[in-house]
């Protein structure tokens, strides 16, 4: 399963790696069969992703696609970032071996969880601060 140069570059020098202590949202996604785990940390301001980082337990494809995914969402609005799926990540990496495309699925999934976490935290902090949102 030969990876292309771009994948190998993101595998050997991944961008945005590591835990983010002051994240606004944290999400994780795992693949229970293989034990893969991706964690995404977000800093958000005005619905724009100001900062993002990841931690990944997985194969080279999982690491490289996590790295590429974080590069792709940085600076985007949450809404735009949520449209990025495994195919788009694989394309940005200039292709992935057929049996490895699945490995790019965890980063977007963890990202959605992180956004969820961010929304919940925001809601509860709003609540704590006495601000109630109308729910319909």
């Amino acid at each position, binding site marked *: 399963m030969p990876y292309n140069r771009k994948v190998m570059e993101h595998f*050997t020098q991944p961008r945005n*790696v590591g835990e983010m202590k002051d994240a606004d949202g944290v999400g994780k996604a795992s693949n229970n069969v293989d034990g893969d785990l991706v964690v995404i940390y977000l800093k958000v301001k005005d619905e724009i992703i100001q900062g993002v980082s990841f*931690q990944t*337990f997985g194969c080279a494809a999982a690491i490289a696609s996590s790295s590429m995914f974080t590069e792709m969402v940085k600076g985007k609005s949450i809404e735009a970032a949520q449209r990025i799926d495994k195919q788009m990540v694989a394309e940005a990496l200039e292709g992935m071996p057929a049996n490895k495309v699945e490995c790019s699925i965890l980063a977007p999934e963890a990202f959605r969880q992180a956004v969820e976490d961010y929304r919940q935290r925001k809601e509860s902090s709003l609540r704590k601060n006495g601000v109630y949102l109308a729910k319909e």
Partner: protein
Amino acid sequence: MEHIYFDNSATTRVDPRVAEAMMPYFDKWYGNASSLHSFGREASEALDEARERTANAIGSKSQEIVFTSGGTESDNLAIQGVAFANRDAGDHIITSAFEHHAVLNTCRFLETQGFRVTYLPVTSVGMVDPELVKEAITKRTILVSIMTANNEIGTVQNVREIGGISHDNGLLFHTDAVQGIGKLPLEVNKDNIDLLALSAHKFHGPKGVGALFVRKGTNLRPLVYGGGQERGLRSSTENIPGIVGLGKAIELSKLELEENVARMTSVRDRIIDGTLVGVTGCRLNGHRVRRLCNNANFRFDYIDGEALVLNLDVKGFATSTGSACSARSTEASHVLKAIGIESEHARGSLRITLSKMNSMAEAEAYLETIKEVVTRLRSISPVAMLSKQEGGA
């Protein structure tokens, strides 16, 4: 950067002396061994000599050697061969749960053909208990097949004892010795072996050629039919350069066995001890003592084997995770499962397999690099979260 090759259980570099022995048979003595003319005679003499060398290396007679296309075909010829030729005598086969796929998948195929197969469990260090072999024998058993040494974790079985049990019960005993040649002293008579499979590319011979020792009087059904070469057991124009290469390689491996084993053992021990001491969250898979002189197999917490192998490759070390043959799937290997290692731990396995061509300096270079690579991959991995999960599980 020179690459350091640590994947010798997958395949080996052809020894220059072997390559040299083969060369003339490509474009000088290129005859068909069945031909009457001088080209044919050159070929058939080379064939005879290679057969003798092979027989000498394992203590058999020349006429008991059948040349094949490799370990897989040898295993299949032995197992399918015995099964289909002895169907009247029985329909039950005993093997282990962590054989190479060449044995396991052949047995699974035979199950679809009405045979019954017992897959014996192995211990947590990968040993087959000879007592279990004894217990598994029934009136319908025709064959016991237990590998000499495991290709992934390197455990060396009690072949002689298991062969003895088989013979005491009137059963044929086959052993997949593909990983044993050049690393263990094997003698088919002393070791109670009736069928022994080997593959040249695992001991510095060429790919695509192997042999099966078939004890005189053993009845086999061939896999392929044709011109009747190899006493009808394996028809096809003989692969003379390949067979010459096998003969040369197995002769060398026998001649130089002691010094090669000593050398590999010391390099292997440095690698095992250095890794276990130098890297945290790392354990050895398999038996510490009953182990091939060229095999080290570790599991590293919180990192993935493919990532490890690729990162080591970038750093100049060729290694593997799981058996080479299963590298196409991301599943944990059946061998690691068989010794009871599951999920994340199986994921982080690394196999280092040496040959006579590896040096202590290469071991030292590796020990530097493995620390660096494991540290880097763990810095990417959500280690804290994984260790928490684990504590909770």
